[in-house]
Structures are given as structure tokens and as C-alpha cells.
């Protein structure tokens, strides 16, 4: 019997939270079920866009952190 996969199953799959066995079954289903494949592609596309929407802090902020770490060796601050 073919298992029916839900949107939630696909979300877990896209976020690497499915088991190896589930992966095998989902990948098999994706090969035959166009509607499921379309849902998967939409989810994957959105996930990639969310990845792209991440921001990076300024170089100045990063340098301040690195400098703090180096100085901490010389003048350790006690909590």
C-alpha cells in the first residue's frame, strides 16, 4: 500500500527531520506524485528564499568581537 504524505511530512523532510526509511518512501512518492512534487518544490524554494533573507552584521561589529576575544587573554574579566 502506498503511504499518503502530508504537507507536515514534507516540511519535516525539507528540514531534515525525517528518518532514513521515511526519506526513502517520500523520495519514491515524489517520483510518481506530481502534486506532492509541486508542494515539495514550493517548500524547497521558500526555504532557499528564507536562507537568502538572512543578514550579515557589519564588519565593524565582527571586528569588535574578535578584538574583545584577543584582549580577553591579556586582561581577563572576572564574572
Amino acid at each position, binding site marked *: 500500500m502506498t503511504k499518503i504524505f502530508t504537507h507536515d511530512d514534507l*516540511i519535516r523532510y525539507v528540514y531534515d527531520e525525517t528518518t532514513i526509511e521515511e526519506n526513502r518512501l517520500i523520495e519514491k512518492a515524489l517520483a510518481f506524485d506530481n502534486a506532492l512534487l509541486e508542494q515539495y518544490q514550493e517548500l524547497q524554494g*521558500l526555504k532557499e528564499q528564507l536562507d*537568502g*533573507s*538572512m*543578514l550579515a*552584521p557589519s564588519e565593524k561589529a565582527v571586528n569588535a568581537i574578535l578584538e574583545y*576575544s*584577543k584582549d580577553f587573554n591579556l586582561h581577563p574579566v572576572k564574572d
Partner: protein
Amino acid sequence: MNSQKTKLDDSQLVNQYINGNEVAFEQLVIRHKSRIFSTIYMIVKDQYVAEDLMQEVFIKAIRTLKSGRYNEEGKFLPWILRIAHNLAIDNFRKNKRYPTIVMDDGNSVFETLEFAEGSFEDAQMKKDMHKSLRKLIQELPDAQKEVLIMRHFMDMSFKEISDQTGVSINTALGRMRYALINLRKKMQQYNIAYDQNFYS
């Protein structure tokens, strides 16, 4: 000859840093700065506050690591993201009555922000689209936004989200589902470019 370098994992870098290797720490910062900064920014919505808080997060991390109080059993990224999330939430709560929000609306300091990915000829188009996407995330209902930030930006599992928020795994999954569906709807509604081949 195989010239490919082996990439050290976080745990190895942390150990090297504890043993005095500052370059290892620099690699950790470079590897995770975008995820940590984005997590804070999604909550406080102000670039300058987010940068201050990010520095505070790393100061706490540096002190813990160098004083030998770091628990090696835990993973570095979830640990530092928890610190970031807690500080951002504290800051948000403190300033809730008189919020100083710099909106991500295209006419503020965000023009100067660097993007996590590299530059392309169509960088401006991508920049606009990602800016719109961040704005749409802010429009989501709080419960959906919380799960989206925890799952996508903080890389927490649905089980961890369930434990932290006190809802079932199915509820967390359902909130994530609605968050993604709503984002898609809003993107279509505002006609935000969506091309799956854009990144290929």
C-alpha cells in the same frame, strides 16, 4: 594530489579556541554570524540594537569558553543561539512600551546592510525581494513567527521547539505550516518575485 582541506566542525574549533587558537574562534564567528545576527534582528527589528546584542552574546560566549565553564556535551550553535534568543527577547520586553523600531522599509540604514550571500549582477533584485520577505515575516501572527524563527533561523528541531514553547510537536509543525503558507500567499498578494530557478 588531493589538495582539498578538511573542514573542522564546531566542536573541534571550540576545543582549539579553548586551547588558545584565536583563528579557530574567528572561523566560528564567520561561520555563524549571519544566523545569529538574523535571529536577533528578527526579534528586535533594529540593526544597531541587533549588532549591540550580538556583541553581548559573543562576550558571554567568550567568557564562558575561556573560563572553562562550557559544557562540551552541548553543541555550539544551539547553545549560542539560545543566548542570542534570550537576550533579544529580554531586550524586546524591556522596550515594548516605547519601541524604537527601525522598519525594514527601504529608506533606512538597511540599505547599507551586507547580505549573507555573494554578489551577483541581479543583486539589487534579490536584495529587494529578501527585504520584502523579511517584512512579510514580521507581519505573521506571533505564534507562527516564533516557530519560523526557531526552526529556520535558530535551526531548532520541532521537538526542541515543542519543549521550549510548551506546545505539542504537531502544534509546532502546524504553526510552521501556516507560517509558510501565509508567507507564500503574501508573496503572491504583493507580487514578490518567486522563481525557483533563480538560485540554480
